[in-house]
């Protein structure tokens, strides 16, 4: 399957996919990968926003029309969550880099805290956005 295994005989794989159960650290890891892909798109949107701003008032109004559409708002909602989850995950990973927080209970707790922070911060941000006239 991988390039490195070329030439080696086929070996039976351990049935890890069927015996593995979902747990919070694994969910966080996968969620973070998803957020990274989302933020990659978000960075391109940010660059496009700057280009529209530089292109003049009409181009900028047109770009805001796309961002303000229902689909645009849904994308921005996802980006908001991805930003906050990535911030929390970065802090968590920095503790890991210092060798702290690997005990299963601590890793579970910080994972749950990262998700909870991202959810709450996203809701607060969009309540403020609504109060500032986003809808």
């Amino acid at each position, binding site marked *: 399957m991988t*390039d490195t295994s070329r030439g080696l005989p086929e070996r039976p794989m351990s049935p890890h996919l069927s015996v593995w159960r979902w747990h919070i650290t694994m969910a966080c890891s996968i969620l973070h990968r998803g957020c990274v892909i989302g*933020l990659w798109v978000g960075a391109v949107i940010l660059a496009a926003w*700057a*280009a529209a701003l*530089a292109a003049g*008032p009409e181009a900028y109004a047109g770009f805001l029309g796309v961002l303000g559409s229902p689909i645009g708002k849904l994308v921005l909602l996802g980006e908001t969550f991805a930003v906050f989850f*990535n911030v929390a995950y970065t802090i968590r990973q920095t503790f890991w880099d210092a060798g702290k927080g690997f005990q299963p209970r601590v890793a579970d707790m910080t994972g749950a805290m990262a998700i909870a922070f991202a959810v709450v911060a996203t809701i607060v941000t969009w309540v403020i956005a609504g109060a500032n006239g986003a809808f």
Partner: protein
Amino acid sequence: MSKNDLFQPQQFRTPLSRARGLGASRHGVSHFITERVSGLALAPLSLWGVYSALKLIGADQHTVAAWLSQPLNAVLLVLLLASALAHLSNAVQVVIEDYVHRFTSKSALVIGNLFVCVLAGAVGIFSILKVALTVTGAH
């Protein structure tokens, strides 16, 4: 070196596999550290980005251009875009390398990822500087 040593398979495999990109090319640590450090820079900058976005909701082009003509905002926005693209191009490359194993499609995706990130950086930073340096007190 005896004649037997010349025919040890690992002596043929290791340098060639590395040259073909099948082994460690000794860039893993710098990739990892770049990702961590750019991530550390990105965390406060992205929070500032959310704060700024909330401030600029619904503002027209002139208002936003005036906001961007303030040096602090222009510098922070350039840093936000640059650190985000540096961090995300590294992060997405790891995702590609983890899941795409065919040499051609993996290379195409890794190069495409790099091209999109560099292009977004060039267009974004040029646009930010153009607005920041041409708008002079136009409110």
